[in-house]
């Protein structure tokens, strides 16, 4: 009997859905209990390794915890120390914000702009260009090539070329001179910023409804710029939102570039990011409570920024 009911409600669309939402919770639960069974294997793993870490770091951030002993509640001490006593955290925060404020928007706009430009090409050229532009983020493991390009001796490519052209007299220590380090970090981050968000944009442009444009041209749109603002961008909003999430995440988790290129800690903490600071306290000093406070700051910043972006994006094309 119950099964028949499921069939009837699933078979009809639209209005029945409304009716189904009104069906009492108990009934919906009884008809769909098996869903929980199918969701469980993934759901449990997801909870343990993605949700629990976030919840746990929020709780542990109020404690002193070194993994071996039981956590001791110390109130807001970790946060007070972060803001008042930890100069290196403030330096890391400053570096992270500088990197995020440049690479985030650059990566986001780049992902949208290149997807738009690529869309104007013929299908074969488009496929080649997508691969070329996406390749850097595919090859994330190959960060060491930058070490060779910017190596501090004359065998480093950048130094070699500059020396050869007599622009400099002695090699620049790109990877240890604090004037250059953060900019190299930013260049690499931008180089790798065309990731999943970029693919989403490319696919979004490709699947836009052509008839909308024909209608637009009848209505008086006359060039590709007007087309972009009045038709394309509003239709691309879902992809742009997805891409925003991707950009925010990658802009705030840049730690591993400096990790493998400049070492930990980097000279004068010049490219020390929040993520590096967290790893330093978590993996090296095992002050987990403190590391969790840093993680919480990171999570809260990312979620708030994301909410802000979603609000801004709703205004596009209006």
């Amino acid at each position, binding site marked *: 009997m119950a099964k028949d009911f499921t069939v009837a409600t699933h078979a009809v669309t639209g209005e029945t859905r409304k009716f189904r939402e009104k069906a009492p919770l108990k009934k919906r639960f009884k008809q769909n209990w098996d869903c929980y069974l199918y969701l469980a*294997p993934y759901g449990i793993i997801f909870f343990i390794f993605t949700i629990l870490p976030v919840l746990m770091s929020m709780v542990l951030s109020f404690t002193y915890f070194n993994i071996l002993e039981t956590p001791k509640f110390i109130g807001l001490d970790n946060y007070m120390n972060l803001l008042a006593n930890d100069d290196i955290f403030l330096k890391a925060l400053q570096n992270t914000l500088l990197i995020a404020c440049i690479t985030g928007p650059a990566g986001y706009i780049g992902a949208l702009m290149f997807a738009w430009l690529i869309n104007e090409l013929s299908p074969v050229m488009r496929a080649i260009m997508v691969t070329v532009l996406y390749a850097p983020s595919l090859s994330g493991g190959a960060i060491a090539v930058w070490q060779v390009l910017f190596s501090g001796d004359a065998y480093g490519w950048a130094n070699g070329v500059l020396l050869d052209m007599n622009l400099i007299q002695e090699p620049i220590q790109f990877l240890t001179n604090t004037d250059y380090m953060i900019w190299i970090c930013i260049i690499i981050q931008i180089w790798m910023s065309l990731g999943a968000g970029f693919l989403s944009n490319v696919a979004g442009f490709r699947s836009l409804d052509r008839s909308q444009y024909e209608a637009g041209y009848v209505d008086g749109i006359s060039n590709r710029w007007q087309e972009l603002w009045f038709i394309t961008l509003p239709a691309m909003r879902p992809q742009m939102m997805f891409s925003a999430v991707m950009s925010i995440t990658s802009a705030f988790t840049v730690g591993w570039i400096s990790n493998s290129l400049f070492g930990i800690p980097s000279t004068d903490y010049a490219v020390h990011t929040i993520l590096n600071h967290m790893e330093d306290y978590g993996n090296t000093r095992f002050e987990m409570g403190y590391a969790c406070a840093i993680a919480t700051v990171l999570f809260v910043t990312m979620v708030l920024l994301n909410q802000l972006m979603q609000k801004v994006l709703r205004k596009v094309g209006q």
Partner: protein
Amino acid sequence: MARKTKEINVEKIKASKKVFNPGPGRSRWGNIINFLFLCFIGVIMLFPMIYIVNNAFKPLDELFMFPPNFFVRNPTLDNFTNISVLMSESWVPFSRYVFNTVFVTVVATFFHIILASLAAYVLEKRDFPGSKPIFKIMEISLMFTATATAIPNYIIMSKLGMIDTYWALILPYVGSTMGLYLMKQHLTSTIPNSLLEAARIDGAGELKIFRSIVMPLAKPAWLTMMLFAVQAMWAQQGASQIFTEVKKPLTYALNQIITGGVARAGAGAAVQLIIITPPILLFILTQTQVLDTMASSGMKD
């Protein structure tokens, strides 16, 4: 002879017209500038890659030449044979590193695809209490990538006794959100509810429907999940999760060669080529399906 060149010219003009054909609201010069600009950007993006490829085939004297030469002159395979020499000296056999990476990648990819797709299927096609809030949480957690949750994750794994086991590398990826998110969005647009209804009326169970209707039709989506999974697992170094040398992944072992510095420059370049090749090849093979999947990746409010 003259006639033939003329024909080719005509074809060339036709071809160029096709490439730079200005559509409505398009000027031909705009299209040409666009094309040249993209080529310029493409060269910049590829620059480090081309450098890797060239360096991998350079003999030692070219690697240490001043002024440095961008392109290789006398390509050689010495650097690759050097890797095997270096690796044969290590007390953990090279094949063991390869096994570790292949095992971890295959297991994580397989379980991620099966479990996340099954979850995505019920979240999208069944309306059970809690389905919408659960998916909303998953959508938000797209931001909590493995790098961001590394430290609390380490505590959890150490409490579960998973540190220094393959599970420490496998399980976090199985439970990652990106794959589930893409699969769910893909199912919205590809599989009509009426098809599932018909199957249910014919008496097919949910698992049967999942296996013989949903997964075959959602092939682009799980190929995309595979690409992302292989990409992530291949780059895994497990530096903070795996301490026993015999369990370390390949990328870790290869990176040890790069850390050898100047003396290992040649082998290091070859290693980098080995590290970047598989994900790029996989993307070239799956590009059409990946773009199909990403077309529905947008977030609706």
